[in-house]
Structure formats: C-alpha cells, structure tokens
C-alpha cells in the first residue's frame, strides 16, 4: 500500500486550509462548490477505474439521475436537503446495482461499452419521464434549510456544507481503498483468475465496488443540484461520462488526489474559456485528452508522485 509521504501530508494540509479559506480569499463560492461536486464525481469514478480496474463510460447516469431525483424530491415533494442528498446516494446505488448486474460479467472495452449503452437508456428515461422536464430540465430547485436550521440559501453556508461532505466522502473513499475489501479489489485488478482461485467470488466484489462508486456519483449529483439549483440532460449525457474520465485521467488514475486535481482543472477551464474561445473549448479539452494519453498517462498527480519517488530513491 502506498504510504502517505511527508510531501503528500503537506499537500493535504495545504488543501484543507485552501478549502476552508476559499470563500474568504475571493474565490467565487458557487464555482468552488461546483468544482467540489465534480471532484466527488471523479473520485467516485476513480474508485472503480483506478482501484478496481473497470472503465465505466456511463457514470453520468448515476450522477445525472440522482441530480434529477434530488431536484424532484425537493421541488415536488418538499423534502429537506439532507434527505435529498441521501436519496441521491441511495438512488445512485440502486441504479448502480442494476448496471452492475448486467455489466460486471464483461471486461475491458466491453464493460465500457455496456455501461455506455445502459447510460444511454437512463438518459432516454430522463428525456421522456414526466418529472424531469424533458429538454428543459428541472429548474429553480430551492436549497432549503439543512436539518431545518442552516439556511443553504446563503452561498457561504452552502459552501461549508459542500466542503464538509466532500472531505468526509474523500476520507471514506480512502478508507474503502485500504480496507480488507479494498485489498480484494486490488487483487482483482492485478490478477483476476488468481483471485478467483483463492476463493474470492470476484463478480460480487466488483459489483459492490460498482455500487459504492455509483452511490458516491449519485451523492455528487444530488449535491450539484442543491448547489446549482437545476438538473438537466447534460448531467446524464455521455459526454459528461467522458468528461469525468478526463478529469480522472488528467489528475491521475489510481491516485487519491488526482481526480480532485483533474476536476479542478477541467471545471476551471470550462468556466474560464467558455466565453473567450467558443468552440475552441472543445478543441482544448480534446487536446488535453490527447496530451494526457500520449505524454503523461499517470496523470499530473501520478507523474509528480513518481518523480518524487524517483528522487527519493536516488537520494
């Protein structure tokens, strides 16, 4: 297991401080919240891609559908935000279970394709189902009061709630990866037939990993609805699945912090560049994809980690 190095510890401390003071140093809180939601989403994908070795090209389904569910329970049923988040998590896990049962038996490229196809169906349901608002999406979802006390209408309160959820889930993912269960996932990634012959029913482990990942993605989706106030078709579109892969890849597949970094870069790019360069955003995002795959496959964080290790080895 990779031990937390001093450098990593320092980086985490810095990050935590940054998260706490972000709104105080003039960062636009809605932007940072959006970033954290996508970071969560990317962490969810990474749990699967990085730590189980399964590439899902359909993660937007969990993220997006849960986003709708959260919006629906708040807007139409008047549920409080904490229940909305919870329902996002649960719904994500449930769809994950369905997807998992179908897809888990396939590997590699096939797995990617099957998840993509299943996600297309979810996206179709979202287009057709009456409660999603079709092409227009669910708009104007109020944030409400957390636990009946904290008014999330204030960006600052909402921000700290989001940050707290993020930190907790991030720690939870770390725990999952190093847990006894995480060890089995690692075996599966390294040598699946061997894991089977040791008596592990790998499909069940993969399925649980898939469900956990989907649950986190669902939570991220419902958080996003709370933060932004809407859920739309682009949340379930396959290009969102592509984007979250890019985030993970850019930051570093199989590193803990990589997806967070990747989400930061991609969200920031889209935010900063959208008005300035128009269609070139797509070109730039595409180019980053290409560059990542060609030049730093381990992602920025992965490469940094390697570089640090090498330097230490030399010293």
């Amino acid at each position, binding site marked *: 297991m990779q031990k937390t190095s001093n450098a990593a510890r320092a980086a985490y401390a810095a990050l935590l401080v940054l998260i706490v003071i972000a709104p105080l140093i003039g960062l636009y809180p809605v932007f940072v919240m959006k970033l954290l939601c996508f970071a969560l989403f990317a962490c969810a994908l990474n749990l699967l891609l990085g730590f189980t070795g399964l590439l899902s090209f359909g993660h937007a389904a969990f993220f997006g559908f849960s986003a709708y569910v959260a919006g629906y329970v708040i807007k139409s049923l008047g549920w409080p935000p904490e229940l909305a988040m919870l329902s996002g998590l649960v719904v994500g896990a449930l769809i994950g279970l369905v997807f998992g049962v179908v897809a888990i038996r396939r590997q590699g490229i096939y797995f990617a394709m099957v998840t993509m196809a*299943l996600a297309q169906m979810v996206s179709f349901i979202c287009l057709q189902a009456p409660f999603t608002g079709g092409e227009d999406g669910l708009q104007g979802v109020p944030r409400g009061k957390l636990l009946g006390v904290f008014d999330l209408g204030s960006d600052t309160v909402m921000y700290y709630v989001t940050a707290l959820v993020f930190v907790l889930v991030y720690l939870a993912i770390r725990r999952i990866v190093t847990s006894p269960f995480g060890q089995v996932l690692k075996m599966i990634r390294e040598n699946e037939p061997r894991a089977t012959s040791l008596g592990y029913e790998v499909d069940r482990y993969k399925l649980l990993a898939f469900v956990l990942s989907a649950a986190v993605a669902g939570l991220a989706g419902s958080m996003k609805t709370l933060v932004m106030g809407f859920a739309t078709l682009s949340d379930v579109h396959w290009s969102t699945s592509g984007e979250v892969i890019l985030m993970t890849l850019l930051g570093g597949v199989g590193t803990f912090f990589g997806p967070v970094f990747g989400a930061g870069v991609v969200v920031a790019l889209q935010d900063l560049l959208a008005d300035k360069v128009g269609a070139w955003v797509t070109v730039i995002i595409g180019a980053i994809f290409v560059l990542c795959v060609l030049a730093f496959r381990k992602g920025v964080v992965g490469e940094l980690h390697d570089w640090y290790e090498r330097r230490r080895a030399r010293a």
Partner: protein
Amino acid sequence: MLEIFGIPLQAFLGQLILGLVNGAFYAMLSLGLAVIFGLLDIVNFAHGALYMVGAFAAWIMLDKLGVNFWLALVLAPLVVGVLGVVIERTLLKRLYGLDPLYGLLLTFGLAQILEGVFRDQYGVSGQSYPVPDLLSGATNLGFMILPNYRAFVVLASLVVCLFTWFIIERTRLGAYLRAGTENARLVQAFGVNVPLMVMLTYAAGAALAGLAGVLAAPIIQVTPLMGSNLIVVVFAVVVIGGMGSIMGSILTGLILGLIEGLTRVFYPEASSVVVFVIMVIVLIFRPAGLFGKEA
C-alpha cells in the same frame, strides 16, 4: 387495407426500406470500426468525426472547387484516408501495446478536436449538399416514393462491405491482418511489414468512414455534429455484432437499421434507444456478441 399490428402494411414496408438505408450507414461505419479495432486494438472514437470530415470534404470540394459528387466519392475518402495516415503516424503509433482503453480515450479527445475545429469554422447549423443529378429522381414503389439516391446508397454500401469482408477473411493479407491483431511484433518478426500494414488499415478504416460521410451528405445536413450523434449508436452495433467480427458488424448494421425502422412505426420516441436495449439483451445472453467468438 392489409394491416400488421394495427399499422398499415404500406407504412410498415416504407419504414423497413428506410431502416435499410440507415442500416447501410451503420454497416459501413461499424465495418470500419471493426477493422480498426481488429488490427490496432483501438476503439476508434474518432470514427464519427472522420465520417463528418468526409462529408465536409465533399461539401467543401463542391462549394469551393466545383468538384462534382462522383469525383468527391473518390477524392473525399482519399482525403480522410490521408488524415487517417497522419493520425496513425503521429498519435496512435505511440499507443501500441498499451491497454486498449488508452486508444479509446485518445480518439475520444481527437474527435472533440476535429469537431471543435469544424464547429469554429462552419457553425452547427449545417450545410446542404445537393443530390447528384443522375440520381435525383424518385421511384414510386407503390407503398412509398423512394428517392433513387437512397436506393443507390444501400447498393453502394453493400458492395463496399462485401469487398472489405472478402479481403479480410479470404486473402493472405487478411490473415496477416488477423494475426497482427493479436501479436503484431511477432508477425513483423516473420517478415511482414506490419507498421505499413497498420497504417494502411487505419487509413482504410478512416476512408470507409469518409466514404460513408460523402454518401450521407446529400441525405442529411452536413454539420460538425453529425458524427458524434451517430457514433455511440455505431459502437452499440459493433458490440452487438461482436467486436472485431467483420461479417458480424455488416449484418448487425443492416439488421439494426431494420429494427430501428420498425421501432419508428410502433414507438417512435424509442427509436433512438432501441439499439442500446438490444445491446444489453444480446450481451446478457451472448456475452461476445451475436457473431463474436467467445473470449
């Protein structure tokens, strides 16, 4: 009037014919994908973009240089093929031997780049390409009026598909291709110029996409997004047919076109998703696809 499940026979037949036209495009595109996946082990996400480039190439040739359809039918695939050569030489070449997922991701990025560039240049509202004069009429089939051009598309695609199938499954070159699929280095060590073969394969796959693009241009608007709308469906076709299976992707392409046509009769909204439903069902019962060999 004769009816099938409450649908007039005429409408039924008409939709089948139209499904076949769509199927012809699925077949051509999935064939190219299968060929590329076979030899390069790359799921070519850029395939849709290459299809789009093919259509644009034809449109630009007509618009700027006055090149007619028949000439474009040859030239545009060539252009796309050359683009394929460039892509293979500069980018894909560096991925051989890695996990195929990297190929998927790289070409995904590539598709975005191509699409973005054309969007910047031409917007998304679409350009129209006239039907060539020779085929401009329509034939009254009794149950529907079928534009001659669409009949031509089906025919042309069948010819192209069968030709490609023959090369791959029945010639020595094809045997190299199939062996190269598994262990290109070893085939090369036997004395086969594999890098050249790989390059030409990608170029040929790209050219097929380009050809499909040219054929599509007179039917639909030529827009930068035309490829990305189609590619996900074509992926599903390839998976249903069995990844890497040549005949599988041709047949599945045609069949799914027909099924989609039928869906349009019974539940039009679902026509865009029926392919995925079928894909899931097929994979549950035949994990390697309809025509795929067991893994």
